[in-house]
């Protein structure tokens, strides 16, 4: 064996050891904790959003299922009872005192009661709810198309995002910072299947699933579908809001575009 081949072997072995250590370091969270790694990996989210927007027509509908497909064991994730003083008071009254506030970049800010929402034209859809964790459940949702509300409130042309503020303090900070919130772009806001649901499986939306009102954005993952919605705000930028990433989970590292 010539020294040269030995050197090459030594080089290869050392290279493999370094590569292994780097990867194991990553497993240990070292690489994952590096801001530059996160910044590079984040680029994929942009690519995914642009690609899906290009490949999926804006009007494409999520599959709708039959009554027979409805899950008997629809899982409730995140907050299952906001247990907040103001919320409990509203719930005790069957949400008769609850009002949905719509403001921000709209010509006509509004406050709508549950009865007023129920009086509006409704849409019912049986759809699949895909959790970011990997499971799926199928439910029947009845509610007001978000499009109808935005048109009624006269959404201004400068609006680019619709933000949903919720009653539940999932972050348990005691203040507004920990409260759940979400946002969608106009393409999803005006999608025919994007509704604010007040009924689930033919009955009033139960508290674990977001009573009195939850968002349905059927072409994205479950965490986009804010529960316990109290206020809708039209904005041109999401960066100034709370963590700046456009939602409770987005502020904690999840993608704003949750189409995959």
């Amino acid at each position: 064996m010539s020294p040269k081949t030995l050197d090459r072997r030594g080089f290869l072995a050392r290279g493999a050891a370094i590569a292994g250590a780097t990867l194991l370091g990553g497993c240990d969270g070292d690489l994952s904790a590096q801001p530059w790694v996160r910044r590079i990996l984040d680029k994929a989210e942009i690519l995914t959003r642009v690609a899906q927007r290009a490949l999926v027509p804006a009007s494409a509908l999520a599959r709708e299922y039959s009554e027979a497909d409805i899950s008997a064991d629809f899982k409730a994730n995140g907050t299952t009872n906001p247990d907040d003083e103001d919320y409990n008071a509203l719930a005790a009254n069957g949400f008769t005192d609850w009002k949905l506030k719509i403001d921000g970049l709209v010509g006509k800010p509004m406050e709508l009661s549950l009865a007023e929402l129920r009086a509006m034209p409704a849409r019912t859809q049986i759809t699949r709810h895909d959790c970011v964790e990997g499971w799926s459940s199928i439910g029947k949702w009845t509610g007001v198309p978000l499009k109808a509300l935005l048109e009624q409130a006269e959404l201004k042309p400068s609006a680019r995002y619709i933000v949903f503020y919720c009653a539940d303090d999932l972050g348990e900070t005691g203040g507004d910072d920990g409260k759940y919130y979400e946002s969608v772009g106009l393409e999803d806001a005006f999608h025919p299947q994007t509704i604010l649901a007040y009924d689930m499986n033919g009955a009033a939306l139960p508290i674990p699933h977001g009573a009195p009102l939850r968002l349905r954005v059927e072409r994205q993952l479950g965490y986009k579908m804010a529960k316990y919605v109290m206020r809708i705000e039209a904005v041109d930028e999401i960066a100034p809001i709370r963590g700046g990433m456009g939602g409770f989970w987005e502020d904690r590292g999840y993608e704003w575009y949750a189409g995959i």
Partner: protein
Amino acid sequence: MEPQTDVSNHKQEVVHRHSGAVRVTHWVNVVCLLVLLMSGLQIFNAHPALYLGSKSTFADPVMAMQPMRHGEEIFGITKIFGWHIDTTGVFGLAITPDGGYEVRGFPWSVTLPGHRDLSMGRRWHFFFAWLFVINGFIYLIYSLASGHISRDLAPSGPELRHIGASIWEHLRLRFPQGEEAKRYNVLQKLAYLIVAFLLLPLMLATGLAMSPGMDAGYPFLLDIFGGRQSARTIHFIAASGIVLFVVVHLVMVLISGVWNNLRSMITGRYVVKVPEAQS
């Protein structure tokens, strides 16, 4: 006859075994598959159970890794088709880096990141999924344009007819020598074809079938796999198939001349011993 025992009558011939495109896409794929597997297990751990059909039937998974209490003691149980297997320390209840136990599907040592972090697992997974897809397309275009598939990968009729003999030779760990060693043998061809043109595209398709966005635009993704939860289960099974392939592939690389094989996939050069008379 054992060609390698009689060195005096043979000379070493260096052949150009792998093209640049194959070498580069191979190593990019190695990195992609490793990151995709480990980050995929991180994502799986967020809900370590598999189902068939459109929705999750939580009480009746086809496979699940979960903790189970028996009196004072807690076990890690892996359920498959109604069977309960005690996998304490590995699946369901896994050993932590400091020697304790924690409730999780796959242990920290095989997930990326090691600690529980679904959002980071997803970032790794989707970034490397893109790299994997781009790399795969480059390989596909190269393979079609250069004739790599028909020249190097497609098995011939005679090869297929003698597959039994080839399996028997492999089981005895006797590998082709001389001229024969310049080409892939029939088992290699079939294994590479199945992985490159069946398992890897299946990973992509089942991955896309799990996307609610893609499902809206391309509902056939749901139909061909029998629903989103079936697609997720097939994604897991196909990934297991790739892991199995990699294990066999690595064993073969190790026992059929590890340095020669490695060099050929890095520099392209592969040493074949050929009888003097024939060269």
